[in-house]
């Protein structure tokens, strides 16, 4: 992740890296818990993706702005001191945004909130969010951090979308709640249950690695 630091890069690059080359789920492998738990249906995956993207965006912007501000206001020695307590600051900021999402979802999307349940508050311990704060937002400008958050959030959402499409279509015979096959299709239930998530995800990772190996892709996974 450190190669993202300090290197001048175009806006597009900051945005796109989260989707492909540094996809948080398939490449960096952070934030597995919600990915696996929520990818039962496409609707849940989109809801979770939106919530996580919002938190990422908010925390990345605030942390980048705060760090830039402190960098200007404080002397270098003082800044080094503040850096020691940066993790608690990040955690408080992230937790605030998660609380905001939690409240808003509860108020304005109660059906979705009921289905995602436990996993909305759990965004607070999602490694992606803290990981991006530490690895990117702390040492980059606000605009770059915004793009980074959008890219990472989109990458996260797309990865969940991929998993949930496979699980919903095969496991329930539906796509976004609408039956794909005729009534004769007997769904492969196991994919909608807990083991299905682990199996699907493991096979997807293997597939990506295989593609990378056979195409002689750049860099190691």
């Amino acid at each position, binding site marked *: 992740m450190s190669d993202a630091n300090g290197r001048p890069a175009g806006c597009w690059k900051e945005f796109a890296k989260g989707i492909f080359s540094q996809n948080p789920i398939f490449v960096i492998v952070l934030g597995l818990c919600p990915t696996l738990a929520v990818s039962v249906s496409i609707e849940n995956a989109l809801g979770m993706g939106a919530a996580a993207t919002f938190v990422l965006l908010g925390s990345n912007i605030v942390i980048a702005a705060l760090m830039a501000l402190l960098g200007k206001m404080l002397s270098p020695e003082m800044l080094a001191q503040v850096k020691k307590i940066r993790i608690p600051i990040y955690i408080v900021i992230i937790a605030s945004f998660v609380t905001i999402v939690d409240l808003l979802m509860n108020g304005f999307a109660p059906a979705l909130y009921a289905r995602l349940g436990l996993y909305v508050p759990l965004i*607070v311990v999602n490694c992606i969010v803290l990981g991006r704060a530490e690895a990117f937002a702390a040492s980059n400008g606000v605009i770059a951090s915004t793009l980074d958050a959008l890219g990472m959030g989109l990458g996260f959402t797309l990865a969940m979308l991929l998993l949930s499409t496979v699980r919903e279509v095969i496991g329930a015979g539906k796509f976004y709640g609408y039956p794909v096959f005729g009534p004769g299709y007997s769904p492969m239930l196991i994919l909608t249950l807990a083991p299905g*998530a682990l*199996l699907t995800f493991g096979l997807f990772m293997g597939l990506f690695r295989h593609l990378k190996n056979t195409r002689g892709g750049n860099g190691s996974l």
Partner: protein
Amino acid sequence: MDLFELFSIFIGVSLVHNFIFCQFLGLCPYIGVTERTSSAVGMGMAVIFVMTLTSAITWAVYEWVLVPCGITYLYIIAFILVIAAFVQLVEMFLQKSVPALYRALGIYLPLITTNCAVFGVVTLNKIELFGTTNSLLKCIVQGFGGGAGFMLAMLIMAGIRERLEMADVPEALKGMPIALITAGLTAIAFLGFSGLSI
């Protein structure tokens, strides 16, 4: 207090709704630390310890601070800070006073702060148990049971992975993917516990 009820909470959270196999909480250390049985045991012990005690502490913070102040909606922030502070404190305490235990658990403790399983168990406590009778005792049992189930899953996985190293796994599946698939197959076995009622 019904001992039976406590037992059923324990079985429920450790086997029927096992954190790793059924709720996907704490997968990161699960994949990361299960390459050796010894490290799996260390991590498991640390998680049991932290989960049990944070369950009690978050209960106290919630009932004695958040509820009287009418700010229960701040529970996410409060809990995550309690966990982070507590883990830090335990680490410092162990380092100074019980060096042997520190050497055994030490390196796993910092990892626990961002372990979803710990935050997961206190959130579950808050959703399911707070407000019921004897909720403190139930929370502690749920915390301990969650940790025990976590350790069980780690041990099973570490045992399998030590043997997997000898196996002839397709190139693309080596490492993480095969670990996930193994976990999936083990999770199928754990499905047998679902619907277990005592």
